[in-house]
């Protein structure tokens, strides 16, 4: 097992290398010219050329690639082409909000979705089941921004419980943090609740037909215990998978929510960087997210063995 973890952690290196090469090529294949965004609309071609030269964008691709990799190996993520600020600092600034909201979202989603899914499966084809299904479907077919706007209208503007936008780091107090983070997390929660609840229901249905459920009942276990202790763990692996991939998705940043609630997160940074072709930022961002994904996936994989001892690595 330890060996497995070690191997998985070492596997980060080829994955990152793959990502690095791929992203680098992808970026250079996409049209775009950071010089143009820096210089603005009135710049003359000659001026653009000078800026490109100064930024090293005119060097051959492989030279640019190796310069970048060389920097990386020295632990230097480079400097933003657009704002000339160090990329590491930019990402560090923007990672906090995204991580915090992602965590909050997953916590709230799991707390809501698992009971919903379990009840839907238990009361298969009852009103409760259909209610969960309808709620879930609305959760993922209504655009996020609509959910966000409605929450703002309701909870912020009408009731005045929460600010309409912005972000306060946890370091400034949990209450202050929650005031800002709750609505965006709730918005995202509606989507993830939908997915996780449906997945829970589907897998619980499989499990509830098994013999050991009968055994549990024969022991005189009350229903909630049968459901949560005996059935849920057996249904856990696919549920964990959606939770895990969902979390991975969230730490990549969710642009729409960040936009609607004006949260300075990773999602907007990535999109802005892509739209501005701020290569060092995009490259560093994707490397970082891929690293986080590998990590999250490792944790999911390890948690499989925790929930289902038959799975071994």
């Amino acid at each position: 097992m330890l060996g497995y973890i070690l191997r998985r952690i070492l596997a980060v290196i080829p994955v990152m290398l793959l990502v690095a090469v791929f992203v680098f090529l992808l970026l250079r294949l996409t049209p775009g010219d950071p010089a143009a965004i820096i210089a603005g609309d009135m710049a003359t071609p000659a001026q653009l050329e000078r800026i490109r030269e100064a930024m090293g964008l005119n060097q051959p691709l492989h030279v640019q690639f190796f310069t970048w990799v060389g920097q990386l190996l020295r632990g230097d993520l480079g400097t933003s082409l657009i704002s000339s600020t160090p990329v590491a600092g930019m990402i560090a600034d923007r990672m906090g909000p995204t991580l915090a909201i992602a965590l909050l979202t997953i916590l709230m989603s799991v707390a809501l979705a698992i009971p919903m899914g379990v009840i839907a499966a238990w009361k298969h084809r009852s009103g409760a089941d259909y209610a969960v299904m309808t709620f879930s479907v609305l959760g993922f077919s209504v655009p996020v921004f609509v959910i966000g706007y409605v929450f703002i209208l309701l909870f912020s503007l009408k009731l005045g419980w929460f600010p309409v936008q912005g972000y306060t780091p946890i370091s400034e107090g949990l209450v202050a943090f929650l005031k800002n983070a709750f609505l965006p997390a709730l918005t995202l929660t509606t989507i993830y609740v939908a997915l996780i609840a449906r997945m829970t229901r589907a897998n619980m249905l499989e499990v509830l037909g098994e013999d050991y459920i009968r055994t549990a009942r024969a022991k005189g276990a009350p229903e909630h215990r049968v459901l949560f202790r005996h059935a849920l763990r057996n249904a856990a692996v696919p549920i964990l998978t959606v939770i895990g991939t969902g979390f991975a998705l969230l730490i990549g940043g969710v642009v729409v929510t960040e936009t609607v609630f004006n949260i300075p997160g990773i999602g907007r940074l990535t999109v802005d960087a892509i739209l501005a072709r701020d290569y060092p930022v995009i490259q560093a961002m994707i490397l970082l997210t891929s690293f986080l994904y590998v990590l999250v996936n490792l944790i999911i994989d390890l948690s499989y063995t925790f929930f289902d001892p038959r799975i071994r690595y």
Partner: protein
Amino acid sequence: MSQAPQPSSAMQPVLRVIGLPHLGIGPKIAALVLALIVAATILAPWLAPHDPLTMDPLVRLKGPMEGHPLGTDNYGRDILSRVLIGGRLSLVIGIAAAVVSVILGLVIGMIAGFFHTADAIIMRMMDALMAIPAILLAIALVALNGPSVGSVIAAITIPEIPRVVRLVRAVVLGAREEPYVEAAIALGSSTFKILTRHLLPNTLAPLIVQGTYILASAILTEAILSFLGAGVSTETPTWGNIMAEGRQFFRIKPDLILYPGVMLSLCILSINLLGDAARDMLDPRLKKRAG
């Protein structure tokens, strides 16, 4: 046993669903709603009162009025016509993205879940793939191929695949230890057959959920992409871009989001109900439980 020719057993599950023998009222309504929506979008060119592109910016953002039963959008185009026509591309993109990512994810996921040796390599590649933002991919694809529905579907699908792969793999990892799988090995069933006939049905339930989720999110993502300049032309109406365009008018004219949103939700709800019914039907144990 009757002497009538038996349909091949592979067809039986399909026939069972189509025959709708045990369907409750819910799935029947769902089938009807879905059929209506699909028919409406297919017949849209004949049903729509206007060309969805004809505009009159001087009559913009109006409520229901003569000639425009649902009012007009911010270019003064007919909302009803746009919503009807918009369903076509949306459904094509949604269904294609769902089907392609589910099929590819299924194949890759089953291989990863079943073969220990392939697992590590495949999953690491998936990790890498998952990290590529759809937007970047879309911009690159559009740049290489020009704006096309294919590029959009590819850009939406590729990042979804790893998630499907993970899900399928998780299910297969658990199911492959079942004695009936061992029995099948002993019976000389090819790996392909074991994967498709024994393990595949186990993945159905979660895949229906994931698939409809992808369907819905593809329709919404398409809109985001088209607004970042990496999707199909914003001229072509889709439910996604009607809603995305309507976004800035949410507070003053929510209809722009409401109509396509309702259509989309109804579609997804129906597909889910039908998917559940189909799945229950494929699982004999559940059929019993449900009575």
